[in-house]
């Protein structure tokens, strides 16, 4: 079914959705911040 194939093709071409250095930097910074908060919470618990 050509219509479905075109839609699938369009969908697959969107992947990966975000691929940029800036996003990676922001994402990893968010990751680090959350891990830091977890670490601080563990210390507070102790």
């Amino acid at each position, binding site marked *: 079914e*050509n*219509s479905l194939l075109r*839609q699938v*093709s369009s969908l697959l071409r969107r*992947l990966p959705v975000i691929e940029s250095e800036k996003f990676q930097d922001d994402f990893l910074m968010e990751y680090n911040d959350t891990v830091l908060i977890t670490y601080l919470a563990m210390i507070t618990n102790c």
Partner: protein
Amino acid sequence: MDIEQKQADLIDYFVKQAHNHKEESLPNVIVEATSNSSLFAFSEILAVPNITQLRGTKYSVFVDVLQLFAHGTWSDYKKNVERLPPMVPDQIRKLKQLSVLTFAETNKVLPYDKLMQELDVSNVRELEDFLINECMYSGIVRGKLDQLRRCFEVQFAAGRDLRPEQLENMIRTLESWSTSSDNLLVSIQDKIKWADTKSEMNKKHQKDVEDRMEAAKKSS
């Protein structure tokens, strides 16, 4: 999906037209289909037996035109301009729109310079007008025009007709996506089990400590 819904009726109409017309009037059907402002898919029309039978006849160039609109770009037309029949302005605009879709297949960021070169546009203003009026407003692409970096960031592009060799790549990509999704689900399940186990261990440990505290209080 919106594009497919919009052009489904048009595809049906032109397929019926191709079925019902004789060999002599099929070129007109092809020109009408390739000039239509809302039609961007031509595989169904190409597959009609009346159209495929045009190959080898004096009208076979029109099949080539239809093939060009299904898979080709404006550059491909320029390379074969002597062989192919002249195009009306609507066809030229349509082919340029389809070319943008082809470029968006391989790159998400399309530099203005490349687009101007490929689409034979002389200045940025004309290019932006074309991208906004002909591509974005017709719904075949969605994206952002970055004038500072002189590029067009494509967020969505409608799918063009597929060539047979593209199918295998698509299947492999889908399989890869399915595998990574399955792996993700398995790892989520594992993490849930781990969290439950840890929670149970924690509760048990807490209870042990409280029991020992009670025992120590009683003995002292």
